[in-house]
């Protein structure tokens, strides 16, 4: 796999790397046995700090998703549950219906986004509380 960076995202670089491995696992692009790029390879292509790569790999190791093999590299050992495609379709449909009715009520794309972000934040704070 190949990593890329979004410097303006406000997400810490190591978290961006972790998220990209998560996504690759969820999409089935990475499977147990696959090797992650070495720190040296990532660093040479992205010009980022090697400690950042190691930190991301340690996080992934703690989650049980990858394991370093000394002298060989870091390998995928775990899987992430792939979301049921039928569930994805169902939620996309209900969201589309919601979006159409919001549009019909005169809400702009920006307002809709603001509502979505606020609701998402409320939800995650309920989970924390």
């Amino acid at each position: 796999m190949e990593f890329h960076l979004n410097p303006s995202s406000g997400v810490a670089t190591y978290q961006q790397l972790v998220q990209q491995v998560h996504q690759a696992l969820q999409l089935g692009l990475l499977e147990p046995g696959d090797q992650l790029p070495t720190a040296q390879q990532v660093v040479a292509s992205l010009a980022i700090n090697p400690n950042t790569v190691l930190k991301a790999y340690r996080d992934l190791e703690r989650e049980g998703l990858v394991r370093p093999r000394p002298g060989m590299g870091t390998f995928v050992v775990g899987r992430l549950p792939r979301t049921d495609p039928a569930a994805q379709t169902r939620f996309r449909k209900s969201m589309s219906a919601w979006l159409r009715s919001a549009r019909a009520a005169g809400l702009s794309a920006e307002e809709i986004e603001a509502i979505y972000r606020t609701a998402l934040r409320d939800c995650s704070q309920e989970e924390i509380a």
Partner: protein
Amino acid sequence: MTMAIEAFGVGRRYGRRWALTDCTLSIPAGRVVGLVGPNGAGKSTLLHLAVGLLEPSAGTISVLDQGARSGPSQLERIGFLAQDSPIYARLTVAQHVRMGQLLNRTWDAAFAASRIKNLGLDPSQRAGTMSGGQRAQLALTLAVAKRPELLVLDEPVAALDPLARREFLQTLMEIVAVEGVSVVLSSHLMADVERVCDYLVVLVAGRVALTGDVDELLALHHRLTGPRRDVARMPAHQLVIEQSHVDKQTTLIVRSQEPILDPVWNVTPVTLDDLALAYMRQARDSAGPSSNGLELAR
């Protein structure tokens, strides 16, 4: 734990003017440290003190747990790249490598040769006819071939175009990954610092305004946007670093160990750029108009 640079109350005076005042710092080894601050903040002075080119007027500074000016064996442990990648315009690439070999007790000729080859440099070319990026790469190669434990780089990419800058940083990070060398570099380019550094030191008007692990600093600071609010009414554990108010809205950058739960605030993360600038402004404003002539036009 080995400390790359440790300074206690370090000051340096040029004539009557203090370029650095009461600088106290502990930077662990094994990091890539970004030293940032406005022009005249004392960045170059601090780096020159660390490599032993200058002697402090006050306080003590040690590098890799040894006094910064403790002798030739200490110099072997440090690779220094002064501003504008110093090279000798009339010497060829090969002559630079030969010079490095003759002037250093420790010298990794194989590293230098393979680096020159990988960079595609022509050994017979005079340095004066090379591009800025090539000169910077040559200077970096020489600094690393002496096998230092600490690399000190003063504005290494300031004069380079974006492509040469990226290539220089790629080389530097690869060296860090393979050789495990500690790095302290000064820069004005926050985007570069954000990419390559895992430790930040903000210097303003000769003083340390902020220092710490980059990820910890980012996790500790938040931008709050919400209805207009007097900062005197903020909770005690939320330290306001920067504030701006318009008619109905207040925007703050706060430092807080705890998550911001007050629902009136829209909380967003800050970038390293925002953070460094906020601390630079805060330090400049609190220093007052008398110090170092850094007056505020208001």
